[in-house]
């Protein structure tokens, strides 16, 4: 009988068990996704075509995947660094919107030398993202307000702000949609000549490497783990708990802000109502699957970028809705998380 069985936490799950359950979860998630797609009208034979061949084995697909992965790496890192200090940043999208707004402002009103245009956009996007997360951070430190709620809700506020601008002062009069005018080319990332891929990839590479280095090879990452696992012990052993937590949370906001800049300056070249859509869930999925490890964030972001690419194809050819892509991400995340349960616990039955 199941109700007489009980769970025992495994003391030291081995590497093999951990990887097996991870891979197992991934397979289950992909199977569920495939079933969903077939049910939605995609012929089963097309799945392999669209997913594997179109996204990984064609030049077009690969460049699209790489382009889609750039903001994903940034939001994944954003979610991950905050997660390391146990701050649940559920407002990645809000900070991303703020970053997009700040860089759009620079792009539309830019003056001064054109070489400084992109660096200014970068700095202001980072600051705007950091400022947006500073509000829930302050509320949490001062009054203990739960950041899950405050970051999430501030995301909606940020979106309303975007709408306010797009339907108001920033609306391009020559366009019937609520979008800004196209940025002058000084505010574009240089297109590298391989599909849509742009020079933002270098910025993302530098950022990802720096964060990997800081989190894995400097005392910052070491302190972050101590603070995240047991803040009280960290304080008692004399670690700079507050500055580590504040620093990483602000970094998280800044990274999300830069992701916003990456999208408007890299692919859209204008601000519209959809640049930030779906990044919150992606950020959470990536950070969880990567267990907040920066290099894994990069790997998983590329995998998720592929899902986006495949999703675009599916949207066009089989009129699959946007929501289906979120649903697939969710299915993969849930099944991997559930599979982790089996590497953490074993099922025992009482002896008699």
């Amino acid at each position, binding site marked *: 009988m199941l109700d007489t069985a009980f769970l025992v936490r495994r003391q030291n799950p081995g590497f093999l068990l951990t990887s097996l359950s991870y891979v197992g979860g991934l397979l289950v998630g992909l199977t569920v996704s495939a079933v969903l797609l077939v049910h939605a009208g995609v012929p089963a034979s097309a799945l392999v075509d669209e997913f594997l061949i179109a996204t990984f084995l064609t030049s077009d697909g690969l460049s699209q995947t790489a382009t889609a992965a750039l903001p994903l790496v940034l939001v994944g890192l954003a979610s991950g660094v905050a997660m390391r200090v146990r701050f649940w940043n559920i407002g990645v999208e809000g900070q991303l919107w703020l970053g997009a707004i700040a860089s759009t402002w620079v792009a539309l009103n830019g003056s001064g030398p054109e070489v400084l245009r992109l660096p200014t956009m970068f700095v202001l996007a980072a600051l705007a993202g950091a400022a947006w997360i500073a509000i829930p951070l302050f509320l949490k430190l001062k009054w203990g307000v739960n950041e899950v709620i405050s970051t999430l809700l501030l995301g909606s506020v940020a979106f309303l702000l975007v709408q306010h601008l797009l339907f108001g002062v920033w609306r391009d009069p020559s366009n019937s949609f609520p979008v800004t005018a196209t940025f002058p080319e000084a505010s574009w990332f240089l297109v590298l000549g391989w599909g849509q891929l742009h020079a933002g990839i270098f910025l993302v590479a530098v950022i990802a490497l720096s964060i990997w280095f800081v989190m894995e090879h400097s005392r910052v990452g*070491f302190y972050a783990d101590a603070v995240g696992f*047991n803040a009280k012990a960290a304080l008692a052993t004399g670690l700079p708990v507050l500055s580590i937590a504040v620093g990483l949370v602000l970094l998280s906001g800044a990274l999300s802000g830069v992701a916003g800049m990456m999208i408007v300056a890299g692919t859209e070249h204008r601000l519209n109502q959809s640049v930030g859509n779906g990044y919150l869930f992606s950020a959470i999925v990536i950070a969880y699957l990567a267990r907040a490890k920066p290099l894994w964030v990069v790997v998983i972001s590329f995998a998720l970028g592929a899902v986006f690419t495949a999703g675009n194809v599916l949207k066009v050819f089989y009129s699959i809705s946007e929501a289906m892509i979120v649903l697939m991400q969710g299915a993969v995340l849930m099944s991997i998380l559930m599979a982790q349960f089996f590497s953490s616990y074993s099922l025992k039955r009482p002896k008699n």
Partner: protein
Amino acid sequence: MTTALQQAGDMRQPLGTPAALLMRGIGKSFDGKAALRDASFCLEWGEVHAIVGENGAGKSTLMNVAAGVYVADGGDQSIDGEAISLRSPLEAAAAGLGMVHQHFRLVESFTVAENVLLGFGRKAAVKTLTDAAAIVSAKSSEIGLPVDPHKLVANLSIAERQRAEIIKVMLLGARILVMDEPTAVLTDEEARTLLSFAQRLSRQGHAVVLITHKFREVAAFCDRVTIMRHGETVLEGARVANVTEAEVARLMVGDALTVAGRPLSRPGDVCLSVERLSARATAHGQSLNDLGFELHVGEILGIAGVGGNGQEELVACLLGLDRAGAGAIVLDGQDISTAKPDQRREAGLRVIPSDRFDSGLIRELSIADNLALTTVASGSFGGPFLLSRRAMREKAAEAIDAFDIRGATPERPASLLSGGNAQKVLLARELDHGLKVLIAHSPSRGLDMKAAEFVRSAIRRAVEAGAACLLISEDLQEVMSLSHRVAVMNRGRIAGCRQTGDVTPEWIGGLLAGHA
């Protein structure tokens, strides 16, 4: 001497009516450690009976056996003359015995009436909230303990919660009411109200047990007293009128005062002085009031005291986790009372906290990481910014060897260590070259004999090598065996301090119980 007293108790045989609760030869072990050995207890109808003893004497364990929370390893128990063996608190309630635990069993987000309804379960006659509220009100006025049945437990004061808990237990059918340290959380006024309620209840024919280590507080309201020590009943059911406070104090403490083994060093200059330290209480805590002491180089100052008298708060203040309080803390001539934890560490302060995985070690981190926690800041593992994991592992391997930490490799998470070996990791980190003052809070709690001895001798060696140690412990034997001087902490202050040789059972027993 005890036998005369015991006879005085035993001679009072039940006259015709069976005892409310009779326990004989009760034994109970946890993980091979005996908490009760051949303990006995006899409660009559119509009396208030105090069970007194030090922390860990077995009072609560014995009553938890009586209430069906624990199942005894051996012994007999009967309620109202009927032999029973209980397997759950529900069965105890059905037999008419209810216990009010030290930590109340109430759901905070429910109202009082909802809690009562929850306690009744599915098969009871009372099924609706209206009915539950009605019987709570009725019981409340019947026994004279005012409680609003519609109030959320979270919004009740501690005294109100206690009243709600008593009413719940009595509505579930208790005629024998056991209360574990009921006055510990109350003000003097509230305590008097509660105790006279207990007396009133007993006069109506119920039986009440008060578990306490503060005999003086309850003596005036009790009929008989049973004293426990080390899991045994050392005095069973003596009339309160026939015993003196001094005798109770001596029986509680027992032979704890005869053990020796303190460091050979002779105390030198003052290295830590604490003056007029005051701190406000945190939730459910004890405030510190004008606390002061001096600690000398090469000395162990033992602070005895019943848990919850401000020990945690004192450690938090010394360590710098709580810097809101007032007073001076001077370490080696340097006032550190406003310094941050890391600055205090730099000044030579080290700590072994009472709960090692709460504020000492980090479960999820590796042993190497845990050992490096306090020294990374000084740049000893790869300079001001970088971190050399290899250097950390090498250092950890040395410590594992030096302290004989079993089952440890540098990479293993600390959570996999046994209590004794985890404590060794902590010792290896805290007893380093920079150590000047060690604050050891219950350093051997929960450890087996061998591990406890290892911890004590490590502290002894550190002090002989020129450090000083503030040993805060509820284990009187530990305090007496290690300390040069013994102080007693009570209600957030130092109630008294003596050379260990001058400590008498009456003095320490009196201070522990809060007579001063």
